[in-house]
């Protein structure tokens, strides 16, 4: 597609439920990032996929969070047993994955846990 697409754009869920957030990167982009942004805060790195390399999961805040990237394209971020502190905007970005190349961002998924 023309840009990074995230779905849903908004998600309201009950505490304790599982949620899945989807990211469609720009075609041909080998690198994919997930970030979290709480209200008025900066970007919190979650996970990074680069080609066939093992993903960098060092930013995942707990074992309730996981992500996968199928076929080197679409990625799904899963949050199990959601908590109220998980409420945030979840941003996905992709890049060509070479030095000096910028990342392009989706519009994000606003997750609200009630």
């Amino acid at each position, binding site marked *: 597609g023309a840009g990074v697409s995230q779905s849903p754009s908004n998600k309201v869920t009950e505490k304790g439920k599982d949620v899945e957030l989807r990211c469609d990167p720009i075609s041909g982009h080998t690198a994919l990032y997930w970030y979290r942004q709480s209200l008025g805060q900066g*970007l919190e790195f979650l996970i990074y996929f680069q080609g066939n390399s093992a993903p960098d999961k060092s930013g995942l805040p707990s074992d309730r969070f996981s992500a996968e990237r199928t076929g080197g394209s679409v990625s799904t971020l899963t949050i199990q047993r959601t908590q109220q502190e998980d409420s945030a905007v979840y941003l996905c970005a992709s890049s060509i994955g070479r030095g000096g190349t910028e990342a392009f961002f989706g519009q994000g998924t606003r997750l609200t846990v009630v």
Partner: protein
Amino acid sequence: AQSVTQLDSHVSVSEGTPVLLRCNYSSSYSPSLFWYVQHPNKGLQLLLKYTSAATLVKGINGFEAEFKKSETSFHLTKPSAHMSDAAEYFCVVSRMDSNYQLIWGAGTKLIIKP
């Protein structure tokens, strides 16, 4: 290891006066550096990038940044602030090993006073 420090969490200037947002980086390699902007309730947008060509980089909306290797700095400037410049600004460094992961600063909120 690469890292980036934005020296000010908030900067407040009057409309029509110069803007200076400070960024220092640490990198074991010749870095690629970026500035992104995020307007309220909007997505992240690339302002400009440095990739070892000209040290003075011009971006969108009249912003520019100068790469100074001796000072390990990449400060963002604009001669005359406009109300529409009010936003959050992020300085980013790219790992230049095979990983190419982007490392983000904490952000600087630019406030424009009328």
